[in-house]
């Protein structure tokens, strides 16, 4: 074995990787080769220094700062959920009041139409006059004042240009997981749509339309956590959007065989039942 090859063996020796036969071969070579023996000792000194390099360094409390930031983000997310919930609730109400949820039951295919709310209507004013939104009765256990203020803000800003999911201009761009909750153990899925500009058939991104949904609570028992029994890999292609049933302050819908709840804290169960009754009547 050459001296050059020995150098690798010396480094592997200090890495503790040599098997017994290799160790014997190395020692035999070192015995008869002063140059490699010097190399061996020099590497020994270097590896000794490297071992002594590690030091414990006192540092500022990064952990507490991170946990505090996590807490703040969680609080902000909850407020955000309320806000978006208000937006979804408002759009659901408009579906009902303007009778845009139109189901055809010719026996086989059911055509689903859902209106959506998008927030930057000022940039692309709708051709039609805005639909007047009827103010809903809010029944929110947590904070009715906040709910009312949120709705007021929506009515002040939005002109509610309505869109149906079957509208070819509306493209589902992504669905993403937005996090879990320590107590309720639910996931939320944010469906993001973009609106293709419709002027003269040109295409391009315009506004973003948000829906917020959570998995059906009936799956909660099976779900150990966010990594639980239902599989959600972040980006998925959403398939048919099928109303399934109505629950407390939520409508459950099915996407690709997974049930999600439209988060609508501002609708009472009665409101939802009325919507669901209308749907079921047409489906049956």
């Amino acid at each position, binding site marked *: 074995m050459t001296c050059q090859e020995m150098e690798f063996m010396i480094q592997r020796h200090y890495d503790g990787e040599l098997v017994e036969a290799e160790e014997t071969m190395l020692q035999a070579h070192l015995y008869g080769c002063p140059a490699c023996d010097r190399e061996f000792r020099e590497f020994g000194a*270097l590896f000794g220094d490297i071992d002594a390099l590690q030091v414990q*360094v006192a540092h500022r409390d*990064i952990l507490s700062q991170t*946990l505090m930031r996590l807490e703040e*983000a969680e609080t902000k997310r909850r407020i955000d959920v309320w806000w978006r919930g208000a937006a979804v609730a408002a759009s659901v109400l408009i579906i009902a009041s303007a009778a845009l949820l139109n189901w055809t039951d010719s026996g086989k295919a059911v055509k689903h139409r859902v209106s959506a709310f998008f927030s930057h209507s000022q940039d692309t004013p709708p051709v039609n006059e805005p639909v007047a939104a009827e103010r809903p009765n809010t029944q929110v256990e947590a904070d009715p004042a906040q709910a009312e203020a949120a709705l007021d803000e929506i009515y002040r800003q939005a002109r509610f240009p309505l869109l149906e999911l079957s509208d070819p201009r509306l493209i589902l761009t992504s669905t993403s997981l937005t996090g879990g909750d320590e107590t309720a153990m639910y996931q939320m899925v944010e469906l993001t749509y973009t609106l293709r500009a419709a002027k003269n058939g040109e295409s391009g991104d315009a506004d973003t339309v948000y829906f917020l949904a959570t998995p059906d609570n009936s799956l909660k028992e099976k779900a*150990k956590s966010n990594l639980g029994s239902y599989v959600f890999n972040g980006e998925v292609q959403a398939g048919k959007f099928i109303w399934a049933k109505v629950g407390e302050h939520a409508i459950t819908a099915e996407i690709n065989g997974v049930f999600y709840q439209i988060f609508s804290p501002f609708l009472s169960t009665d409101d939802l039942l009325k919507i669901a009754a209308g749907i079921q009547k047409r489906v049956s």
Partner: protein
Amino acid sequence: MKEQDLVADALASRSSMAELLRMIEPYVFQTAYYLTGSKMDGEDVAQDALWKICRSLHQYKGSSSFRTWVYSVVLNTYRDAVRKKRRVTLPLEETYVDQSPSVEETVAARSRLEELRREIMKLGTEDREIFVLRHLQQLSYAEVAATMDVTEAHVRSRLYRTRQKLKNLLHGGE
């Protein structure tokens, strides 16, 4: 407890998340400290990395080891910091290691170790990352390769060359 379960628990409960972060924080800081060569920069990188770990924990799928996943987040955070720092201020390489003597270091050995630290800071980013992960975080060659998404042969080749260089600089001609 399995890594997968630790992560699952952390996603489900705030206290488990705190526990997980408490467990990995020393490794995250030490790695950031050795990579940046500065306590203050190390703290900043470590804090950013811990936050990214919190926020992207749900993306950890269990296909790689959790340990290498954490280290890869730290490396990416460090690389981002180097890029940002280069734009606005001195290169990171010019900030040397703080004076942090340990009791084991004798005066003579200390100056040699300082020299070694300086030489490590002069290494290119990739060579320094490999050195830190292998020698200061005790990762195996396979783990270093997985963390950096390169081959094990590449890691070995780079590190052998780095150690040869350091030996010649610091212990050559003894």
